[in-house]
């Protein structure tokens, strides 16, 4: 039945089929082109996307490194904590889960609200911390109901533990990273996880980078619904580095106990190595309460406290140095050859300059004084005269040389530098010219002076070691220990050839110390006068001396005025104790021990404690005793006898 019409039909069909075939070829090329583009050209991009789909990482923080004292006693350590995390996408119904948890853990409405907000703000597979410090009974209750709590994950983790409240200030504390931390601390970028705590103050802040360690992660393959299919890899991270400090926890505790109910600080330093043996501030606070977030009641209590417990007064408390500056005034005057130490001045209780009256602390006067007696009895009138001849600029140069007005330690964010006043400083910061009267006040450590107790301790150490610059340290490292390995031999040598130039040269070259003097005799003069101040009748700290052989020390008291006495108060003979607390003088005491072959310097500051001799020196005496008693142990530790 194939007809002619069939023939022409066939031709037409064939022609149209040809058109269709051409179109098909175009489509095939299109599909092929797309395959080439996806699978060859952009394959890398899609492989990455596929891996992003496929793998999910859960980061976790390794335990923080511990911070230990000189003998290896842990000051900041870690404890096991029980935590509860929720991974929202693993739970079938997050609301019922929260409701159940609320009942089991007695969560407050506010807390649940916070958790809900947190869940909304992050990816559904990121864990939300419900509680980071469950009690054992809460933890076991959770585990009991765990089969009904899909999405909840009880976790055993580690958290910071501080066992020694006496070291709260020097160690500092950790807490959750704030927005500011994340902005300012670049190193946190790869170290942060939900459980990371960041060092906020003290050594925790200074050593944060090393103590944090490296974040570990668990990598899982997940399906489209976020369910973990299998663990691909686990990286345990790197635990934080442990640190040994120069602190002696026993001295810390003693000092802290002595400062109980007082506001103040104690610093003890090795005068050769610069090791900080103690750095205590009072009142103390419990740093543990910051680890899991401090509640507002406790926080308010801390920041509204009269004595500011959160401030590390050893490095962030600034006080006029008072009479403790007189040692430097002597050194400065002798070094600059402006004053003969034999010069005798009569103290009648006050002098007058341009109509202004300058009082000595002893109302009836000291009588005739030479320089040694002046320093020993801390005669203000004598030092008005020294300061007048010396001038403020020369005094400030010496003060800066001995470490005032500058940071003592590295990396303590809370440390303050204080003020060493001079003429240009006043012009720059106050905008006025310097008056001679101000020089007189500066000569007895009042007026614009602002120094931290640690600076005063360093100053004393650098006088006690014969006038050499040391670099204080608080973190022990083995390289520096080698440097000090034959220190004892040197000290022995020095005893034998006390004035031997070779020995001094040795000292400088071996320990790379810089001398701060022109003539070593000038330093010796001060050391001797300070001996008198503590161990001779009439000396300001005679009452607090130690007499046992090897325990004899030398020190200088200081009393720094918070408010100047009015003429009326002076007349009424108002005692410091009668003033309101805020107006009472600060009590200061700096010392070094033992007098013969000194090894340690100490500074004690009691805020509003009255006079240095009455309040600060007795505390220093007890601390010095302890430090000296523990010296043999410290030495043997340094020589590696105790490991």
């Amino acid at each position: 039945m194939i007809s002619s019409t069939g023939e022409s039909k066939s031709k037409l069909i064939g022609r149209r089929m040809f058109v269709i075939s051409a179109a098909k070829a175009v489509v095939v090329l299109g599909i092929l082109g797309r395959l080439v583009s996806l699978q060859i050209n952009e394959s890398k991009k899609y492989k990455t996307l596929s891996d992003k789909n496929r793998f999910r990482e859960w980061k976790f923080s390794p335990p923080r490194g511990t911070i230990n004292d000189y003998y290896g006693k842990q000051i900041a350590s870690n404890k096991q904590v029980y935590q509860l995390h929720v991974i929202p996408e693993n739970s079938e119904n997050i609301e019922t889960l929260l409701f159940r948890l609320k009942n089991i853990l007695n969560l407050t409405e506010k807390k649940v609200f916070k958790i809900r907000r947190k869940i909304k703000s992050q990816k559904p597979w990121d864990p939300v911390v419900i509680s980071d410090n469950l009690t054992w009974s809460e933890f076991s209750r959770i585990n009991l109901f765990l089969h009904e709590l899909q999405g909840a994950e009880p976790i055993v983790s580690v958290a910071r533990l501080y066992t020694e409240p006496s070291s709260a200030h020097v160690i500092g504390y950790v807490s959750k990273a704030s927005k500011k931390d994340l902005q300012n601390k670049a190193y946190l970028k790869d170290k942060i996880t939900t459980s990371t705590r960041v060092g906020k103050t003290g050594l925790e802040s200074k050593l944060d980078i090393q103590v944090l360690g490296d974040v570990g992660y668990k990598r899982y393959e997940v399906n489209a619904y976020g369910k973990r299919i299998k663990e691909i890899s686990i990286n345990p991270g790197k635990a934080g580095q442990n640190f040994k400090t120069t602190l002696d926890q026993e001295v810390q505790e003693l000092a802290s106990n002595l400062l109980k109910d007082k506001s103040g600080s104690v610093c003890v330093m090795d005068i050769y190595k610069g090791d900080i043996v103690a750095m205590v501030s009072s009142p103390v606070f419990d740093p543990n309460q910051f680890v899991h977030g401090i509640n507002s009641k406790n926080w308010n209590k801390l920041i509204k406290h009269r004595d500011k417990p959160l401030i590390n007064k050893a490095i962030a408390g600034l006080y006029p140095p008072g009479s403790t500056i007189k040692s430097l005034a002597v050194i400065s005057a002798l070094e600059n050859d402006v004053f003969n130490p034999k010069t005798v001045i009569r103290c009648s209780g006050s002098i007058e300059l341009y109509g202004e009256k300058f009082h000595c602390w002893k109302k009836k006067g000291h009588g005739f004084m030479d320089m040694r007696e002046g320093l020993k009895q801390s005669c203000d009138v004598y030092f008005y005269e020294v300061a007048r001849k010396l001038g403020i600029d020369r005094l400030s140069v010496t003060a800066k040389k001995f470490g005032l007005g500058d940071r003592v330690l590295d990396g303590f964010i809370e440390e303050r530098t204080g003020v060493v006043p001079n003429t240009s400083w006043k012009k720059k910061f106050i905008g006025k010219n310097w008056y001679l009267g101000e020089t007189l006040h500066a000569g007895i450590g009042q007026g614009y002076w602002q120094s931290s107790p640690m600076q005063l301790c360093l100053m004393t150490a650098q006088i006690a070691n014969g006038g050499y610059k040391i670099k204080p340290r608080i973190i022990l490292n083995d390289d520096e220990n080698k440097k000090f390995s034959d220190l004892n031999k040197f000290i022995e040598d020095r005893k034998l050839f006390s004035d031997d130039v070779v020995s001094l040269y040795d000292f400088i070259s071996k320990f790379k110390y810089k001398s701060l003097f022109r003539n070593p005799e000038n330093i010796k003069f001060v050391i001797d006068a300070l001996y008198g101040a503590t161990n001779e009748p009439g000396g300001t700290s005679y009452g607090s001396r130690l007499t046992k052989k090897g325990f004899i020390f030398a020190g200088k008291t200081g009393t720094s005025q918070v408010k100047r006495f009015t003429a009326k108060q002076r007349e009424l003979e108002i005692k410091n104790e009668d003033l309101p607390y805020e107006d009472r003088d600060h009590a200061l005491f700096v010392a070094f021990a033992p007098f013969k072959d000194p090894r340690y310097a100490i500074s004690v500051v009691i805020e509003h404690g009255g006079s240095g001799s009455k309040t600060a020196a007795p505390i220093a005496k007890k601390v010095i005793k302890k430090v000296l008693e523990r010296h043999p142990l410290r030495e043997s530790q340094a020589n590696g006898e105790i490991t």
Partner: protein
Amino acid sequence: MFKQGSIQSHLSIRDKLLAMDFVLLSCIIFLGLISFFAMYSTDGGEFAYHTKSHIVRFFVFFFLFFVVSFFKASFWYSTSIPIYIGILILLILVKYFGLTSSGSQRWLDLYFLNLQPSELMKIGLILFLANYYHRISAGDVNRITFLFKPLVALIIPFILVVTQPDLGTAFLIGVGGFIVIWLAGVKMKYFTYFGLILISLTPIAISFLKPYQKSRILTFLDPSRDPLGAGYQITQSKIAIGSGGFFGKGFLNGSQSYLDYLPEKHTDFIFTLFSEEFGFFGSSIVLTLYVVITMRIVSIGNMVRDTFSKLYCYSFATAFFIYVAVNMCMVLGLIPIVGAPLPILSYGGSSMMAMMLGLGIAMSCKIHKDQSIN
């Protein structure tokens, strides 16, 4: 010109086997084998339900393919209208007795198989129209009165399927029909008129669209509109194919499909899974197989002399190609997701049945090319 039909009216089974197009046959077998592996992979590397059921179906319908191809082409010519009407009745039955799944009523429960008559209609309509244009003379093709019947034959099943609702299949049925009408020689201007009517009807059609269908079209136009909803499927499919690279991730290693990122991986997105595991290398082989199958059927169309066989082969080849192209373009993100299975590879009995039926009739045309249709 002589009547071969009378000479070779009786071919033995052996003759018929030998007269088959072996290139076409081996391509089908090869695709079948590939589909077994792909299905095994969608089951997560287990010989589980989908794999078993797919293999059984393949063999059952492959047998059907042989049976169909052994019937004379003239048999298919004479039964085209009953077949079309039969499928139409099934489509109407679906309206009343059909199974509903995910909001659409498409299946008839035949106990051993859930039959989807709309899939069969793809072949039924081509058969019907090829038959129609075989019967009318060339001069009548472009007369308005002769255009009426094919359009009605096309529009009735189209509307029945659209209202199931199953836009994808309805579209493929319609396209198949238009291809026959076009090949038969209907003038371009009629297509233009029809196109204009369609465009003017678009606003009304849109009002009939289900929200999810609207969303699919909108999402295609702007995939970022809904990255986790309708756009998710396209995105994940592209990731899967792209991440396959040149040689693929390896058999059973397609992480995208294994981890359930791929939607409907054993039906519409089977090509994605295969591409992910076997890469550009594997997907171009599959594409080549489909192109070869299409070309072989076209060449059968070139061989046969009667209008019915020619029209049928050309139209089926083109429709088959369009099914493949629509599915591939869809998973490659070139067109919106319309729900079109990939012939032979996709899981689904009715689709397999329709394709084997269609291929069988084409093979029958080849075997019986020298027999005329009466």
